[in-house]
């Protein structure tokens, strides 16, 4: 997707982990940094979902910055353990081209709903970036 805000501004917002909660106040109940070093940041988040499956769960995610405007997040615990989300931003004229690659893994219990999760995930991420873009332009 291509959005008009500067990649630097978008990247600042999406790596401000503890404030991500403002974009999903109903679904993201808590998000806090539990470990941070030069190479990565580990967050713990409590998620409440009521669409594909109705559930509250806590997961931990390790976020790494792999290069200019490239963020990779690996979910290391919870029902989506093993899921990798890679986000890359590239400046394109006066806009930002956002590439998202999601490799979704779930525990056996939820495998049947993976196709539905994948569809939901796509729209949630798009909505997230629309909101990030709006904030970045303010």
């Amino acid at each position, binding site marked *: 997707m291509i959005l008009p805000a500067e990649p630097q501004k978008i990247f600042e917002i999406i790596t401000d982990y503890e404030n991500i909660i403002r974009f999903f106040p*109903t679904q993201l109940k808590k998000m806090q940094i539990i470990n941070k070093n030069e190479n990565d940041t580990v967050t713990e988040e409590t998620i409440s979902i009521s669409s594909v499956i109705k559930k509250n769960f806590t997961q931990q995610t390790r976020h790494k910055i792999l290069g200019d405007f490239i963020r990779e997040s690996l979910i290391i615990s919870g029902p989506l353990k093993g899921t990798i989300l890679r986000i890359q931003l590239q400046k394109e004229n006066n806009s930002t081209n956002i590439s998202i690659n999601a490799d979704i893994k779930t525990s056996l219990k939820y495998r049947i709903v993976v196709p539905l999760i994948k569809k939901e995930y796509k729209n*949630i991420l798009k*909505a997230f970036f629309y*909101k990030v873009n709006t904030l970045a332009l303010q």
Partner: protein
Amino acid sequence: MSLSTIFNWEKILNNSENIKKEKPFPFGFVKKPIFNYFYEKLVATYPKVDNKWYIPTDMSRSAQKRLFGNDAKKSCFDHEDPTLSKEWNEFRHSLFTNEFIGKISQLTGVKLSGMRHFVFILNKKGDFNMPHAHHTSVTPEHYEYKVTILMYFAKGWKKGDPGGTYICENEDQSSIIFEPDDLDNSMIWFTETPISWHGSRYITKDVIRPSIQFTLQ
């Protein structure tokens, strides 16, 4: 003010410019459903943003909403809102009349018995609504309502600008099959089915889209 002086039923029910489709689910688009002199009064007195407006916390949308008077989010009843204009109160009251319900039943082909919910929605730059359907996993006998209608009050809306409620075939925005291009006195309706996918594109221009949404059961 009677119903026939607010709504132009000739335009709503018989206008050849109207769009009415059965697939992928029944929906329609009507231009100029409200008589111009009354429409202008509604536009002029559309509620201003104040502390009665709220921002929905859905992760898949961005907008501002305002309820009418003492309505609840998921239900409404015929009463007055003293903070709104005489015209908005007349308009709102008209939606509860048997005549209005009957005409909308005629338009949509669905037997309706009354109003279910009503809300003002103001979209502006940065707002959107991802594709969604209201009753994806509900059997028809358990639907909360049968028909959804949006009416637009966006004076000078530029043709082709994103912001109108589109109809799409699935949860992917690339499946849009119809998007209203005229939001200056127009309405879109659709019947509730498990595949009644719709949404509105991300608004990137400095525009505002005053509208109302109401549902009928």
